[in-house]
């Protein structure tokens, strides 16, 4: 027999995988738009540390002189991005999935421990149920960033009709910069995310497709739950707690 743990509900998997091509189109078309006016750079004194973006970058990607095309794709696929985002956020909160996602007061300490573990400065990582502290912060931040992209996007899409929103975000120029920074954030997230998914291995990756993970019969991280999980913290009892025994599956499996 095979133990499985149901990790990702079907709806979450749909939202995740729909978001992938949609956000890709948004970032790509956004780059076509950004090319037409590309003033952002990181400067130290007069020295330009990073320029967004060098000519070679545009040339390599072939994005030059494609503003109209970029705007068309951007203002079509934005609706899918918004719709998918609303459904994702709505589902997460209605289904209770948010309990796995929203960081709590321990998440930041955990995230530091996870980071130390990831870079090899710590032997063990803190226990977690679905996502560790670092994941909770990252995935919750991505959700907030999505909301931020829609708001900053609308602020530059209709700055007169929604001038209150544009003003709230610091004006038209500021909103455009914020919209750009959020996009850099997605690219940064994507790179880390892909790296971590590769690191975590096949069983973790396939759960985003199948919904479940296979559990080894005696996985110390996932002791058998033979009792309903109590929401009360464990109170000290007189009787010694039974050691958790790994289930012995028949040899035939």
């Amino acid at each position, binding site marked *: 027999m095979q133990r499985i743990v149901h990790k990702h509900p079907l709806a979450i998997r749909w939202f995740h995988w729909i978001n992938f091509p949609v956000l890709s189109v948004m970032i790509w078309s956004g780059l076509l738009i950004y090319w037409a006016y590309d003033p952002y750079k990181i400067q130290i004194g007069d020295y330009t540390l990073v320029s967004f973006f060098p000519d070679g970058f545009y040339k390599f990607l072939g994005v030059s002189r494609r503003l109209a095309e970029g705007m068309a794709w951007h203002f079509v696929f934005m609706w899918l991005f918004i719709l998918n985002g609303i459904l994702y956020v709505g589902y997460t909160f209605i289904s209770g999935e948010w309990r796995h996602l929203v960081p709590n007061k321990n998440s930041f300490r955990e995230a530091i421990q996870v980071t130390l573990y990831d870079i090899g400065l710590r032997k063990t990582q803190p226990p977690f149920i679905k996502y560790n502290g670092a994941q909770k912060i990252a995935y919750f931040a991505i959700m907030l960033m999505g909301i931020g992209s829609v708001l900053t996007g609308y602020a530059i899409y209709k700055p007169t009709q929604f001038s209150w929103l544009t003003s709230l975000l610091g004006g038209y120029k500021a909103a455009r910069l914020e919209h750009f920074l959020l996009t850099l954030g997605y690219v940064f997230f994507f790179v880390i995310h892909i790296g971590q998914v590769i690191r975590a291995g096949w069983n973790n990756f396939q759960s985003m497709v*199948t919904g479940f993970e296979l559990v080894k019969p005696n996985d110390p991280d996932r002791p058998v739950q033979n009792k309903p999980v109590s929401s009360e913290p464990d109170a000290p009892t007189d009787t010694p707690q039974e050691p958790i025994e790994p289930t012995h599956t028949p040899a035939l499996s």
Partner: protein
Amino acid sequence: MSQEPQLPEDTLPESTARRRMLKAFGWFALASAVPVGVYEWIKNSPGAQGVKRPLRNILNANETIARTYFSNTHLVPTYSVAEAAKKARTNGYDGIKTPVPDDWKLQIETPNRAPLLLTIEDVKALPKQEMVYEFKCVEGWSQIQHWGGVRLSDFLEKYKLGTHSGNAPDPDNTDDLFRYIGLETPDKGYYVGIDIESAMHPQTLLAYELNGEPISAGHGAPLRLIIPVKYGVKNLKRIGRMFFADERPRDFWAERGYDYYVGL
């Protein structure tokens, strides 16, 4: 904050787990074909004025949505004169590559009515408005600029333009209004079409001054459109001809793949 629940578990025969996995990956592969199909469909669609037909259709739908919340009471934020750029940026010379004609007149055409020819003095006779606002280019840059001129809505009212009946436009009788106003440079090298609601916006100006001086040739002398509810591309320079229509007038940049409405 309620405590994070454990993830539900199951114990199943290996064969069942394997079958579920194969099935999930099968569906995943099938579903992956959808975005590829959508992309190919768009790519292989016929063009509609420089942009693929499905995208153009959605851009037009976006216009319908935007028009539901467009309002004459939504004003572009204005600034003090001191905040305006001393040297306003020039961008684009289509339609103004020849010298300004000495005998410039504004030619106004309404279907079934005699054309009207006006001089710059006729325009200047109307109450002057000054406006300092952030001009926004479709390329993405913006600049605070100080323009002076007359309200297009005042102008239409004074000369009883923009209506089928020949009366002054009445905001309560929108059926009488032509749906579009078209503008062209004298050489017809640049042309725009603007929905009448945007044209009637109180901040839409027929401008003849920039920073308190008559507009230079590069900025569209002697008379140009300043329309803050649109990107710069609709702010036609050196207006030669103004006309009214119920169908969309041709539009220079819309013919080159841009959205027709480009409302802000």
